[in-house]
């Protein structure tokens, strides 16, 4: 069992499949959940899925090239920073709307129609 996992962890495709699954879950959550906070969480999930893909590519494709491997990690760090900023702004907006509408459910929000 452990050796099987060990074998899988040596394979790029396993990471990419995992990233894909995480991204799909994130997308589904963003589209299907009605709660604004849950939607923000889903966004984080998607971003992290992408980050995982970056890191996996950095580790497997450019394993012999330390310079390129470092670049992949750098992008992942930038994505994390952007995600943190986005989560901050997103939460601020959600709270502001919540105060107005008294509900966290996004299908009650239709201000963009006007």
């Amino acid at each position, binding site marked *: 069992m452990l050796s099987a996992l060990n074998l899988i962890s040596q394979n790029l495709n396993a990471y990419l499949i995992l990233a894909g699954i995480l991204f799909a879950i994130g997308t589904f959550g963003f589209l299907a959940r009605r709660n604004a906070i849950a939607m923000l969480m889903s966004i984080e999930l998607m971003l992290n899925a992408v980050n995982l893909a970056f890191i996996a590519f950095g580790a497997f494709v450019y394993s012999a090239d330390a310079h390129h491997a470092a670049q992949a990690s750098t992008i992942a760090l930038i994505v994390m920073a952007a995600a943190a900023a986005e989560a901050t702004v997103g939460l601020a907006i959600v709270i502001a709307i919540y105060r107005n509408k008294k509900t966290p459910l996004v299908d009650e929000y239709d201000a*963009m129609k006007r």
Partner: protein
Amino acid sequence: MPYDMLIPLIPLLPILGFAFTALFGRRLQLKFGRTAAEIVPVGLIVAVWVIAMIVVVPALGHAEPFGEKGLDVHLWTWIPAGKLTVEMGFHVDALTACLLIVVTTIGMLVHIYSIGYMAHDKATWRFFAYLNLFMFSMLILVLANNWLLVFGGWELVGLSSYSLIGFWYHKRSAALAAKKAFIVNRVGDVGFALGIMAIFVNTGTLNIAESLRLLVEHGVHNTIPLTVVALLVFCGAMGKSAQFPLHVWLPDAMEGPTPVSALIHAATMVNAGVYLVARANPLFSSAQDAMVVVAGIGIFTAILAASIAFTQTDIKRVLAFSTLSQLGYMFAALGVGAYGAAIFHLMSHGFFKGLLFLGSGSVIHSVDGEQDMNRMGGLWRKIPITHATMLIGTIAIAGIPPLAGFFSKDEILGEAFKSGFYWVWIIGVVVAVMTAFYMWRLMGKTFYGESRVDPAVAPHVHESAWQMTLPLILLSIPSILLGLLVGLPLGNGLLVGWLKPIFAESEEILARTPTESLFGLPVDAVLIVISVAAALAGLLSALYLFGVGSRKVKQDKVDAISSTNGATRFLYRASLNKWWFDELNDLLFIRIGGRVAAFLWWFDRTIVDGTVNGVGTVVKDAGGGLRGIQTGRVQNYALGIAIGLIVMAGSFLLIVGQPR
């Protein structure tokens, strides 16, 4: 003589008379009676006649300041617009003078006649206002020195003709006839307007003398070929002078009061076309193809109208078709290059046809408004002056020497023969026989034989008032003497001398060498014998059938002839129905044209408007439909983004990511 003062007065006085009568005529007539309303318009026209005669005499004699080329009276610059400069001015030469004689003389006599004829009408003032307006228009047309002013007069003549034909507008047939005349005239006028534009394109000027000189000078180097220009101008002439196929309005125009028929539809307005072609004679002489068309249409109209006149029973309609036929003669003369002969016939026809129309008006007046010749007859003892003058008119138009019609008609036929247009000559002789025949038929049915007048009216038949008989007597003088005075010696009379400078250029261009002898005899003598024989043949056969004095109309013989066999029966019906031209026009323009117009209307409504409206509707409905997807909910947009992403990524994989 200060001619440049007198000439503008000729059109000025009638328009003043029109303005005065139109503004004050009604009040004057109500307050002071008919005479008060009539005195100004009639008096002014008499003054115009006097002035015109003062101008005409030196103009015909080529005296100073007219000279051979005529006198130009410049009033002011009418339209100064860059390259287009139109002068307001008049031009008087011998040709203008000939027209002035006819227009002012007959105009004056018709004004006097109308005093008697309209004595029982409520709106006499309105009639005289229109008559004055007509005189103004016609005089402008004749005097103008540029094409635009001619066109202005041309249209004004049409307008006043419209108001006069429809003078009894409460009569539906009169209103319809007025409309018909106006519309048919417009058809020709479009051609004339295009012709004027073509002249301007070719020469850059609208002055008549100047533009004609340039047109001939440019010859084949004109932008628009001269034949086209000539035919366009002729188009206008066809409308006004009622030549085939635009002849249909003239017979219907007889719905107007009879003085109008005499003035407008016999002696003046219908001559405008002849005048126009004669005025533009250098143009036509330079475009000989167009001249053949003119001659062909003229002589065809002559025989067509004469054949219709055979069977009409309305006295005025017979005269109307006779007018058409005589105008056809004039155009045939113009077409063969005998411009002088055409003007000669214009003048003599103006007088004797004016006389015949006024006479028919006197007849109608005496039998209480009846126009059907089948309900006249035997009137010659009861209205002797009318009978005598109409007899003179009939003999004149039939072409019996030495009356006016003989000289002018003979000159046309002679010129046609000598210029080599034998077909024009042959048809012309046939028309001469027919003319004499139907004119005597008119006389016989109206004046001779037994009375068929309505018994209720018969005791009241009376000679008309002096205002009506005086013009008849005065008009019969030129009908008798005009030919003797200006037509002798044959082919070289006074009139020829007067008009020589006008047509000299054309004669130079045409350069005809006339045939001088025939069968060893002088050609003139042979032709005269033939045409007199033709006229006599027509006259005597009609005299035999329709009687003279108290001899009865041989109605059984007439019926026998018209129903001999299929061919004669067909001809009789064709003549009676005017060769079905009204029906043809109805079919072509009302039915088929109406269908085409309805189709075009439908096409415009459904296809053209439909396309425009359709584009609008599609965009509007598409927008309305797409409005539904703008829910304002962030997740719907996100779904759209996701689907878009999947589609793009999927198609990228399918197309680019294919394993090679």
